[in-house]
């Protein structure tokens, strides 16, 4: 193999390895616990009877109750879902944990409200399953 061709081949291999190292972690749906995985995280102001979101939105008013609906698939005798809500400055707004024993598709909702209204700004909710991040959603209070 000519030197230039070999150098090109080495360059391509190195670039592929670098790209693989820089790629994002699996998005919501890829994680996590054996038997159970999060397939969907939605936000809204209201819930349906089956705990799914009635009105998907990422824009809220200060007085709203903010719901995060987490759909899981699979079964487990004990799985821990956690919702961690944070403000734009990194401050933790709330952390809620729910242990579930799903047998198939299940929906778990987390909600937060603030009697004197949420400060306007950007927020994030991070959902984890058994300690591994399973999805995040950004939203704004205007």
């Amino acid at each position: 193999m000519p030197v230039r061709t070999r150098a090109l081949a080495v360059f391509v291999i190195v670039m592929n390895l670098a790209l693989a190292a820089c790629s994002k972690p699996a998005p919501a749906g890829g994680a996590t616990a054996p038997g159970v995985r999060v397939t969907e995280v939605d936000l809204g102001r209201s819930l349906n009877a089956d705990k799914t979101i009635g009105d998907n939105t990422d824009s809220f008013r200060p007085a709203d109750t903010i719901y995060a609906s987490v759909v899981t698939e699979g079964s487990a005798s004990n799985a821990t879902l956690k919702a961690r809500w944070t403000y734009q400055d990194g401050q933790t707004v709330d952390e809620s944990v729910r242990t579930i024993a799903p047998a198939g598709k299940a929906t778990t909702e987390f909600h937060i409200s603030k009697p004197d209204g949420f400060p306007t700004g950007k927020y994030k909710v991070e959902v984890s399953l058994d300690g591994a991040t399973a999805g995040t959603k950004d939203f704004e209070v205007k």
Partner: protein
Amino acid sequence: MGIFDRKDDPPKAKPDFSNVQSGSSSTASAPTVPTGTTGTTTTSSGGTYVVVKGDSLSKIAKREYGDAAKWRRIYEANKDIIKDPDLIYPGQTLKIPGA
């Protein structure tokens, strides 16, 4: 007025999230606890819970119903063994009314 006269803006106060209320619920059932360990065994019609160190009625209510404000429901169901809702003891078995 020169640029050296400019005063810094007062530091913005951090938002206070201490009064945020939260909760959760699920279509999935709660895990059952093997015999001999503490924790909750809950069915749709209720269950029992063995108090562990660090528990309070509001903590238990939050875990069971996703809402700490529902502690009174547990208190009402256990008035025969709870004299003061601020005082529960490890090892006490509480009745947990259905959600």
